[in-house]
């Protein structure tokens, strides 16, 4: 059987990091960084998600095929969000002629 067993130490280490990152993202949210609040929040969220995916879900040691499947999911999510949002963000690029 494919042996994905990691050591207890690894699991606990990942958990500790996740807990610390949760605390960090909550605290940072109270500091005004302007635009970078979103950036930091999302970076931390992505890091946490990666930790869970790679270690708890064993993607780090999974078959190449499984990694491609997971990657495809993320890529398609980004396609959906990017194209949809790009429509909204570029709508006002066409200047409206001023007044009469």
């Amino acid at each position, binding site marked *: *059987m*494919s*042996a*994905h*067993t*990691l050591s*207890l130490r690894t*699991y*606990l280490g*990942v*958990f500790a990091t*996740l*807990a610390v990152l*949760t*605390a960090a*993202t*909550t605290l940072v*949210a*109270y*500091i*005004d*960084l302007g635009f970078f*609040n979103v950036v930091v*929040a*999302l970076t*931390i*969220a992505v890091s*946490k*998600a990666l930790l*869970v*995916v790679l*270690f*708890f*879900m064993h993607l780090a040691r*999974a*078959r190449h*095929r*499984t990694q491609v*499947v*997971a990657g*495809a*999911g*993320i890529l*398609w*999510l980004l396609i*959906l*969000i990017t194209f*949809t*949002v790009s429509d*909204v*963000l570029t709508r006002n690029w066409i200047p409206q002629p001023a007044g009469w």
Partner: protein
Amino acid sequence: MPETHAALAHQFEDLTQQHDAATLGMWIFLVTEVMFFGGLFAGYTMYRAEYPAAFAAGSRLCEVALGASNTLILITSSLTMALAVSGAQRGRRRLTLVFLGLTMTLGALFLGVKFLEYFHKFQEHLIPGPNFGYTGLSARQVELFICFYFGLTGLHALHMIIGLGVVTVMIVLTWRGRFSSAHYAPIEVAGLYWHFVDIVWIFLFPLLYLVDLHR
């Protein structure tokens, strides 16, 4: 010989192939789940770009303390789930049962806190609809944010409930001694699902609760 294993379905040659198929199937299912939530995330992003102030105001209506506690509860449950799978891999039945039980308890706790939050929203008339109680600036778009709040967390809670059902089934099957170190794919697959639901929450927490704490 694996061919004679009771858990081997007729269409497979051996347990390794069966295990492979099960995990690949689950990963693909999780991709469909990503896209399922993705529709709402796309809508959320689009409106947040259009109405930043309203989304900030809406976010202030969420209870950060409860959200943060729930995040901790959920990542702890992910840990116990990972340990349950690890126990099953090594054929440690009792250990698996304990960790599955812990996972269930934490999952139920999460739903309890979630229910409390919903109850507060109900008390404060923050349910979208004709009686929406928010009267500040951009009330309409705040209502839109609250729609996303309920849509996203509600869908997530539904997945949690399904997850609890799955874990219950796993507990019963483990109890009956259906799994061994040669055959534990169902537990591994259940674990993948549980971790995915955790990941969704990892994104929901900053996107819903932490938008605008710094003002």
